[in-house]
């Protein structure tokens, strides 16, 4: 593992924005290694679970940030993925179903010196906790939200989830599920999230580069991680992993680069004048000049939204990388500013201030 990740579109883009992300979090002078972030707890996911790869990537990536370990906090909800904090040697809280973004909001807003991460799943974040997710995103709280999407309920043993495809046969839907699924990236963009990305558990290099971009973003970063549940939904993302199909299904977005994919770059993304959105076209037909050059910093979220709509329930086509990364003041910073402004406007010390507060303007004295 090297210190720099070769994903110029992402890291370069963030640097261009000039966001001094993580500036409030104390740095360490001591070199850190992956082992420093492993807790002494036995990892209890099913053998073969995609969560192992994500845990290894996070443990391997955190030393790159150079932050004091005690200033990193992982907060999770309920579900298989939410056991994550127990396995990291940082501060952590395994909370209740769906509520991690709310709990993390209180922590982050009151402690700007912490790097706060939320680990959640498709059921936790999009079903029971959907409300907290969208409100954290719109407020732009300084949280890094890792959404492990396996398109199934694992911990409750195999019911369909809010990202399962329509018609999914599960224990609770023997005749097929009826619900139309969420696309987590579209949902986050609808809430005007300032940073939205997608990556895959099996691509360590890409996963790490996206994590790093998220960490460097100041504000809420939502990272959807496609994660395989080998027990209840095995192979859900195989079309994106299998060498025979992945090139035709997977669109790797890089900031400043044309959106081109397919075997030998045969496909690309072009503007669709008939809908105002984007569509996939054969490069041979439209020519390379027609291809859209990816700009993750476009302020208008409708561009990134159109990108997210290229995917259907069958995962054709699946853009991965950073959809959107824009600058907007964080909720934490705005809240701190108000407190500091109020404190700066008063010259009394707190004890005198408290006395004055309790007295108010309308008193009388009995002798």
């Amino acid at each position, binding site marked *: 593992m090297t210190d720099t990740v070769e994903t110029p579109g992402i890291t370069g883009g963030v640097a261009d924005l000039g966001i001094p992300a993580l500036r409030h979090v*104390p740095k360490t002078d001591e070199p850190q290694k992956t082992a420093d972030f492993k*807790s002494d*707890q036995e990892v209890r996911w099913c053998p073969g679970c995609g969560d192992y790869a994500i845990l290894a990537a996070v443990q391997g990536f955190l030393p790159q940030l150079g932050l*004091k*370990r*005690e*200033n990193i*906090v992982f*907060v999770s909800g*309920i579900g298989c993925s939410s056991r994550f*904090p*127990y396995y*990291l*040697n*940082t*501060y*952590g*809280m*395994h*909370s*209740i179903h769906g*509520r991690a973004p*709310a*709990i*993390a*909001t*209180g*922590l*982050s*807003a*009151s*402690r700007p*010196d*912490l790097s706060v991460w939320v680990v959640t799943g498709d059921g936790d974040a999009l079903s029971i906790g959907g*409300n*907290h997710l969208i*409100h954290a995103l719109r407020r732009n709280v300084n949280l890094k939200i890792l959404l492990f999407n396996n398109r199934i309920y694992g911990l409750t043993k195999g019911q369909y989830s809010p990202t399962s495809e329509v018609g999914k046969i599960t224990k609770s839907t023997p005749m097929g599920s009826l619900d139309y699924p969420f696309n987590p990236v579209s949902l986050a963009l609808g809430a005007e999230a300032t940073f939205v990305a997608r990556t895959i558990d099996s691509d360590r290099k890409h996963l790490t580069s996206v994590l790093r971009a998220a960490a460097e973003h100041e504000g809420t970063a939502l990272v959807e991680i496609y994660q395989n549940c080998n027990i209840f939904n095995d192979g859900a993302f195989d079309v994106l992993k299998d060498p025979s199909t992945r090139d035709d299904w997977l669109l790797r977005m890089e900031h400043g680069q044309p959106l081109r994919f397919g075997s030998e770059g045969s496909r690309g993304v072009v503007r669709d004048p008939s809908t105002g959105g984007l569509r996939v076209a054969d490069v041979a037909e439209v020519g390379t000049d027609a291809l859209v050059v990816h700009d993750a910093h476009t302020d208008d979220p409708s561009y990134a939204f159109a990108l997210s709509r290229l995917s259907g329930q069958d995962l054709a086509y699946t853009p991965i990388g950073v959809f959107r990364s824009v600058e907007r003041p964080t909720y934490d910073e705005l*809240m701190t500013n*108000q*407190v500091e*402004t*109020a*404190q700066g*406007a*008063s010259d009394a010390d*707190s*004890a005198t*201030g*408290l*006395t004055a*507060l*309790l*007295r*108010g303007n*309308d*008193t*009388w*004295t*009995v*002798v």
Partner: protein
Amino acid sequence: MSKQVRQLDRVVIRFAGDSGDGMQLTGDRFTSETAAFGNDLSTLPNFPAEIRAPQGTMAGVSSFQLHFADHDIMTPGDRPDVLVAMNPAALKANVADMPRGGTIIVDSHDFTKRALAKVGYEASPLEDGSLDAYQVHEVDLTGLTLGALEGSGLSRKDAGRAKNMFALGLLSWMYSRPTEGTERFLRKKFATKPTIAEANVAAFRAGWNFGETTESFSISYEVKPAAMTAGTYRNISGNLALSYGLIAASQRSGLPLFLGAYPITPASDILHELSKHKRFGVRTFQAEDEIAGIGAALGASFGGALGVTTTSGPGIALKSETIGLAVSLELPLVVVDVQRGGPSTGLPTKTEQSDLMQAMYGRNGEAPVPVVAPRSPADCFWAALEAARIALAYRTPVMLLSDGYLANGSEPWLIPDVDDLPDLRVDFATELNHTDAKGEAEYWPYLRDPETLARPWAVPGTPGLEHRIGGIEKADGSGNISYDPANHDLMVRTRQAKIDGIARSIPPIEVDDPSGEASVLVLGWGSTHGPIGAACRRVRAAGQQVAQAHLRHLNPFPANLGEVLGKYEKVLIPEMNLGQLSMMVRARYLVDAIAYNQVRGLPFRAEELADVITNLISDTDGE
């Protein structure tokens, strides 16, 4: 013309009108003047949940009752001596509460056939003799206000809106209230609209002068200042006192206050108030829902803040799971429930004490939570400090049970010296606290203080103490996940023992039994303190003996409660619910407590409670 001035020891006035008539403002101003004058006082605002209910209807009537006296009083009064009714609906909705001989001042302006019919009056009560039992003053308050404001440049509609100030002026004359404060207040309130400010002042003065000159009011009254403990006082409502108590707790603990809250009647004023005081480092977070409100507060507590969430009963229902998490995490958290009528939406603007069982038991699993209740509006300050003390010292969520009456009612408050407030400082953990089998030092997040059984509070940012907590059962000491049956049994019992042990830190319950010969004890909790106390005074004034005791701590109970209950032949427990404390007392102490219950959305009347007590005394002593 010189008018007669008569001395009174106490007066109860009720202002009633349409919800758009400004009755709450009128009552507030009369209260401020009365407080400044030095009377003891107690208030009861009573208003509909609708912001602007249909005009002139019974549903839209809003009222404000004020009791003031030359001696110390405990309630806003049972029945008004004076009713000010701004329209037929206000008269109809309130006249049944008037004692015979009471004074009714009506704005006759709106007694039109249509307005009367709207509330079901077939004939005008001003003409059909139905008010013969009262001293009725028909005054065209609206017409007189319009006359006084002629030439003010205001439209007729705007000028008419100042009629509440005319009424306030008239009542201020009748009861010899000072007026400068109200004029100052009006000029400040309408600073950006000087025409409106001057119109209100003019209407207020016209009301005063009307009383002074008209033949129809021949007597004015004086209620001398009350003899009160020396010191500096202010008037304060329960929600304001509670907000100040939380800020004081933050200052005295040295921890920043973090409030996570979702707007809900009647608790929202606490959110409004705290959001004004950022200079004390207070952070207020208006959350997307009740669950996020408490979640954020708990997250802030994890980070070392004094986390607080404020709500009413329906909000507690939504927060239950997070309260359970806080029980498991053993982090400090103050949960404020300003109770209102239930179930469901119930009566949002009316008072009730029906959340005691919810506070005690409304969670899955064995999840004990300390419960603290204030007894009067000003006492909300002290109760908030006590809730914070328990939360911080014992690392536990604490339920603070206020109610709608305490929240909006007000009374004089002897302002404390900040240096006399309790010291709530806590020590965060900074050192490793355990040695493992290999002899290496480590941090155990669930290694308890032997005295309080509280676990150490190591906040993120503390090097070397990185640890994980969560809602899954933790092993005693190490805090690792544990499914061991014996460990779970131990942890459940230990969490219970920690809460039970709080009793060692709270004072014994005091009994007010002046003669020491009472056979009946009246036990209460929360806002019934005033009515129960006033009822006991009546009973004693009639020559009988009764004892009163009032609980601040509902969980755990004071250690001597069982002993106290055992001393009396009969224990009477009046509550604004169907007998929740009495169920707890009966279960815990096997005492045959007698419940007396009402859920009318209003405080008890002292008169009625006195009758209940008197009857019980004669039953008991007659046996």
